[in-house]
């Protein structure tokens, strides 16, 4: 009997019962619109996902399922647009509060997503298949040699290939890189004048070591940017976000962040380590990327994953033997999960991402009542929002708080003139302060066309050797 690849794939993602029956034809249709052939789905089902993802856990399979739901949502945007649903996009990195508040306010009348982020995550993490989008963008003129960001290329490629509809508005946060918001001007100038955007930006002008979130002027300005952006979006969509919507979004985000922090602790402190860094980091996306299908699916997966990690701890089981060394990362490159795989092959686990780990200060209650001031303060407490001196100080705190850390992997952001540019300096600062050996690896977080497993294997193996040797000497 011939296999039904689509059904098997959804079963892998923990769909079941009536919903499974309903979803099979839906997935078949929309996976094709995303550019996935039946063979691509089979490859993911039989080879890629079993090899690189910890699918022995229901939590991981449900997490993949949550992403698949979102992939289908994104592929439906042309239909949504025809139906009159307001489409709002955003880009990474951003605080989700505003976007989630819009979804809470608008319900089914609004579609909210960071389509490039979701598409890269879904297509490369689980199918190894985002290259078509990237090449499409390069054909428009995003030159290959200039090291443009794969996220931005995916946005261009997805629109160019009609996978996603033009939004009613994209709210581009330009609080980090220049290329993200400028990509929308690029699309507007080159591909479609109806690609409407709102940008929110702030100069990187705090001095080394300044505590960004305590700079009152900065908090006020950033809040003003957010408020102004929200106002423009509301004018363009006709959907009004109330203070209650914002507060509910803040509450939901806080709840998810707390749960994710719990999972991070379980993974970082677990011995043996219960879950890979890639999977852990992918759970973190619930804090950085809105899900139009709602947080409930990924949050359900997260709840299950926390339970399963606790069970693994009790049972003394994990993804690596007891006492295996652990390497933290600036950001575990979950879109190229073979990096994690090579570490594991060499007996080393990747654990938490500095960017997704919270400081004590981030968990403290805000001093502001205004939701925009709260969101601004929240952003400036995050690593993304800080000057290198303050960010490094916080990285040191995170490394110390999540020890044992046998090594720290930096890099994988060679396409980003902000988040990637300073990492060599951070490495030096952190290593000097914590004694944890840091390793800088020039590579790409989102895609692997330039950095193949063959190219990075030797480097990763040598990192593993150093880490293991140090660990053995300490024991």
């Amino acid at each position, binding site marked *: 009997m011939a296999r039904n690849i689509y059904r098997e794939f959804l079963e892998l993602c923990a769909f079941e019962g009536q919903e499974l029956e309903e979803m099979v034809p839906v997935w078949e249709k929309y996976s094709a619109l995303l550019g996935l052939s039946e063979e691509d789905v089979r490859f993911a089902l039989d080879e890629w996902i079993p090899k690189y993802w910890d699918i022995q856990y229901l939590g991981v399979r449900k997490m993949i399922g949550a992403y698949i739901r979102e992939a289908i949502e994104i592929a439906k945007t042309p239909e949504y647009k025809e139906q009159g649903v307001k489409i709002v996009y955003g880009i990474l990195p951003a605080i989700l509060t505003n976007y989630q508040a819009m979804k809470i306010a608008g319900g089914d009348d609004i579609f909210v997503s960071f389509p490039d982020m979701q598409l890269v995550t879904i297509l490369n993490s689980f199918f190894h298949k985002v290259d078509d989008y990237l090449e499409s963008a390069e054909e428009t003129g995003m030159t290959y040699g200039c090291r443009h960001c794969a996220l931005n290329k995916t946005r261009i490629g997805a629109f160019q290939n009609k996978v996603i509809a033009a939004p009613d508005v994209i709210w581009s946060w330009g609080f980090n890189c220049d290329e993200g*918001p400028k990509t929308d001007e690029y699309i507007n*100038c080159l591909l479609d004048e109806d690609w409407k955007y709102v940008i929110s930006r702030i100069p990187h*002008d705090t001095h080394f070591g300044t505590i960004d979130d305590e700079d009152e002027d900065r908090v006020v300005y950033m809040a003003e940017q957010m408020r102004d952006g929200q106002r423009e979006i509301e004018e363009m969509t006709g959907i009004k976000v109330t203070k209650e919507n914002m507060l509910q979004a803040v509450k939901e985000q806080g709840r998810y962040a707390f749960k994710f922090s719990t999972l991070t602790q379980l993974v970082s402190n677990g011995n043996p380590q219960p879950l890979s860094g890639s999977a852990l980091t992918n759970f973190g996306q619930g804090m950085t990327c809105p899900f139009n299908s709602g947080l409930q699916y990924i949050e359900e997966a997260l709840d299950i994953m926390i339970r399963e990690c606790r069970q693994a701890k009790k049972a003394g089981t994990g993804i690596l033997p007891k006492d295996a060394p652990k390497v933290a990362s600036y950001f575990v490159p979950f879109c190229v999960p073979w990096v994690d795989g090579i570490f594991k092959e060499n007996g080393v686990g990747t654990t938490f991402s500095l960017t997704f780990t919270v400081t004590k200060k981030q968990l403290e209650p805000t001093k502001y009542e205004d939701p925009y001031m709260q969101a601004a303060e929240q952003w400036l407490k995050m690593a993304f929002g800080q000057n290198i001196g303050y960010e490094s100080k916080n990285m040191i705190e995170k490394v110390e708080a999540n020890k044992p850390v046998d090594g720290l992997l930096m890099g994988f952001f060679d*396409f980003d003139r902000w988040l990637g*540019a300073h990492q060599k300096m951070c490495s030096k600062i952190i290593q000097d302060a914590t004694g944890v050996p840091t390793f800088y690896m020039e590579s790409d977080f989102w895609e692997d066309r330039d950095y193949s497993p063959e190219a990075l294997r030797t480097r990763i193996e040598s990192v593993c050797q150093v880490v293991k040797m140090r660990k053995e000497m300490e024991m």
Partner: protein
Amino acid sequence: MDKKIQSLAEAYKKRPVELKQAKKDGKKVIEYIGHFVPEEMIRAAGAEPYFMCRGGEPEPPDAVLEYMLRFMNPLARSMMGYHLMGLDPVTPMADLIVAQQADCHIGRITELMEFNELPVYKVGVPPDWKKEFAGEYYYKALMKLKAKLEEVTGNEITEEGLKEQVEYSNAINESLRKISDLRKKDNPPIGGYEFIRLNHYSFYTDPKETAGKLEEIYEGLKDAPGKFKEGSPRILLAGHAVAIGDYVVPRMIEENGAMIVSDMLDEGLRWYNWDIPTEGDMMRNIWKTKYLDKVPVNIFQPAWRERFAYIKQLIDENKIDGVVWYQLSFDEIYDMECTCLAKWMKEINMPFLKLESSYEYSREAMGPLATRVESFIEAVKGGM
């Protein structure tokens, strides 16, 4: 004429020695990065400014790689690279390095300066320039800079002092405009290569004397015969920056039979087409001219359609035959603008050449560069 230009070049070379003496005499030396940092404010505070925009050599960009991602543009990397190599005579004695913060390249390079404990001061320039409150952010940044300069120098920046310095700058601009306008002639007596150098040297000479020296040059040029072959293609040079010392490309364009008769560069050259008004509140005047009146820089958003409109105006005013877009390697936002410009240039049938430099001008790199420039110029000639 060459002697007069040469005398300015000598003044440029002697500037570090002058600064050393000025330090001994108790003056403060303040380096600055980017045109959103008004040199007039530094002068009005009684300090000696030094424009940091040196480039065109391959080693300094590589010198920062121990600390910095390699995919940063070579001009930004050079700003710290010369210092790390011990080839920057001014930075070690600078009392302050004032850097505009408008883009990530300069942003992270100034953090590298801070990492190396250099005395950096940042001036934030929001790129979303159409928003009133973003403009106010830059204005406040200028006011904070004013306070900082007063603190460092111990001198008050007065309205009169600012006005005086702005008048010097405006006089320099006017002289440069007059010289540049000579390039509108069918066969101009000066090309882009010389004009760019003149423009560069004007940053390093005493502003009280610079306009006068430029006027002398203008007087010598205005009735001089053309220096190009009849029928040479007229080129507009556009892009990010021609750094001080990075003259290979403009020279190559002109050595291969074309003449650069107009320019639109965001950095390196004075914004000589935009004078700062001298009536009213000087800080507001400086702010408005730089932020709102000047054609937007590439990083501003939105900017590219307005920049294209300005380029079209330059094309018409200067009877341009072809546009050369000069881009620095890994300058991602200029790379994106270039794609849009290429499309729009095609729509108006304007020949367009994109050149990119990593400041690697080895024999191996020069060959293909020269071939592209030659082919472009031949193609433009063929279409004239």
